[in-house]
């Protein structure tokens, strides 16, 4: 998972594989961060305190 | 890295087993167990969960009395090279616990790295890999007989024959002590080779034309190591596993038993 593992030797397979993996992880991470921050902002703005 | 390889004469340690000489006596199995701290349990008659790095198969020619014939095939790990070290088991290991060592041509197995997914066992057509289904338990006092050169395996990991790689290491240590880097043929021999009372097993470097294994098997190293000795064969040659264990037999049916054939003639029935 981490390129400093002893047995690691970069090759094409690693690039594709790790590229795909980190791409996905980044999107998920950024997406969730975005959602949480926006939710906090929204809450601070007073949205969602509803009485329905 | 590639350039560095030029400086090192890469070895391809391999084995030639003369099935005409092999008596099926079991010495190699026990020599291996004793050398490699292989555990044992009360009932070992279920051969599917009995750890024997080197297992002797008993083959019959399937003919009726008195045409019957039997032959023993000792089966260590074949140390497959596949194509450029792409052994069936190596590429599948998710945690790099097993690897093809290009310096010696030996497939390593690191027990402490292995987490027991058994994918390599599924990949090995020779059933040369064994899983530690149980904790290894030695009866009181018998752990005194354990060798410090091979670490005992814990429950839940896969193990297999290593061509007694520790002997290679120790031989190299000894050579270093004498200021040498290269090993002589007899300095590194596996435990089974050494113990075989019939002298059926020969071990050495298949790349070295002076070594007995090369002379016996005459491997065509340019073409996946295919044997040029007409009496020599390898198990499941057609799969492209490129094993480093060669067998010799003058008996046609034994050689045929080494691989699967499309045409039914001469093919063994599954028994």
């Amino acid at each position: 998972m981490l390129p400093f593992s002893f047995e690691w030797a970069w090759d094409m397979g690693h690039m594709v594989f790790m590229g795909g993996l980190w791409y996905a992880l980044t999107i998920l991470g950024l997406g969730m961060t975005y959602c949480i921050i926006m939710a906090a902002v929204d809450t601070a703005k007073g949205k969602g305190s509803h009485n329905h | 890295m590639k350039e560095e390889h030029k400086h090192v004469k890469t070895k391809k340690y391999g084995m030639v087993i003369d099935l005409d000489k092999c008596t099926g006596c079991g010495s190699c199995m026990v020599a291996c167990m004793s050398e490699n701290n292989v555990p044992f349990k009360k009932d070992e008659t279920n051969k599917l969960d009995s750890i024997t790095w080197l297992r002797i198969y008993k083959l019959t020619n399937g003919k009726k009395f008195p045409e019957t014939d039997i032959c023993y095939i000792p089966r260590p790990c074949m140390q497959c090279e596949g194509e450029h070290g792409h052994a069936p088991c190596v590429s599948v290991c998710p945690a790099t616990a097993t690897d093809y060592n290009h310096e010696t041509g030996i497939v390593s197995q690191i027990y402490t790295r292995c987490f027991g997914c058994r994918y390599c066992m599924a990949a090995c057509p020779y059933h040369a890999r064994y899983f530690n289904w149980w904790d290894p338990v030695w009866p009181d006092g018998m752990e005194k007989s354990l060798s410090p050169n091979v670490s005992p395996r814990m429950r839940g990991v896969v193990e297999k024959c290593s061509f007694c790689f520790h002997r290679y290491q120790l031989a190299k240590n000894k050579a270093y002590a004498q200021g040498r880097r290269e090993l002589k043929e007899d300095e590194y021999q596996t435990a089974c080779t050494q113990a075989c009372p019939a002298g059926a097993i020969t071990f050495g470097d298949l790349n070295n034309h002076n070594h007995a294994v090369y002379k016996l098997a005459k491997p065509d190293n340019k073409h996946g190591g295919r044997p040029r000795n007409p009496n020599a064969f390898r198990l499941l040659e057609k799969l492209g596993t490129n094993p480093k264990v060669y067998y010799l037999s003058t008996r046609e049916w034994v050689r045929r038993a080494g691989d699967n054939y499309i045409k039914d003639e001469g093919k063994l029935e599954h028994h």
Partner: protein
Amino acid sequence: MSTLDDKAKEVSAEAVDEAETESPTEVNEKKQDNGPWGYIILFFIIGFAASLVIGWGIFPKVLYSQKKQPIDFNHVLHVAAVEEGCESCHFFREDGSFSGVPKLAQCVECHEEVQGEDPNEAKFVEEYVAKGREVPWLVYSKQPDCVFFSHIAHVNMGKMECDTCHGHIGESTHSKVYEENRITGYSRDIWGKNIAGLKKNTWDRMKMDDCAECHAENKAVPKTVETLPWPISWMPRPYEKPASSQVRVQIDKDACFVCHK
């Protein structure tokens, strides 16, 4: 059943409470004491700080048990008394294996009788020499059973100094406390004194990554071995050309077996 029921009631009660009481006074509350946020942040900080203290301070203390060596050993004294440095006691056997910690028989060569007045010396002679018992030394650099390490490959062939991995142990006058990981049984010297696993010196840690680091460094040197010296910082003396030209530091990822058994 009842608990779930209660909880449900509680939740709903709270919700109702919240809905009824909080909303109308929301603005006021915020103005007055900054709402619950102050407490929330405070408790967050308390939790955060406490766990940091536990993780960085208490945890390492709990994780390692401390053991004293059976005999306090003075390396300086011994190094001064012998002729060949470390190798006088830590030598290679004929088969190329490394002797490691000396056996009693070696010590007895000099220590048959009590020498000097050190109580440790007296204890050593009385409890071990006289009784013929081996001293149960605790080995700081003891690697686990799965590790194969060839000293001769590094010392004789690689011309490495003991210090590189073991530090200046020859300059110690007392045996330091041996710390053992309660979970793994490892010596702490393997992971390193620093709980974060950081190191300053080559000998601070002895994990696989440390071996790898050094091996990787060697990989970077010019490939034509004959034209070395290696530009390696820890190499204390000029590189000696080995008898054979085939110096090859194990760097390949396929070489697991080289260090594992």
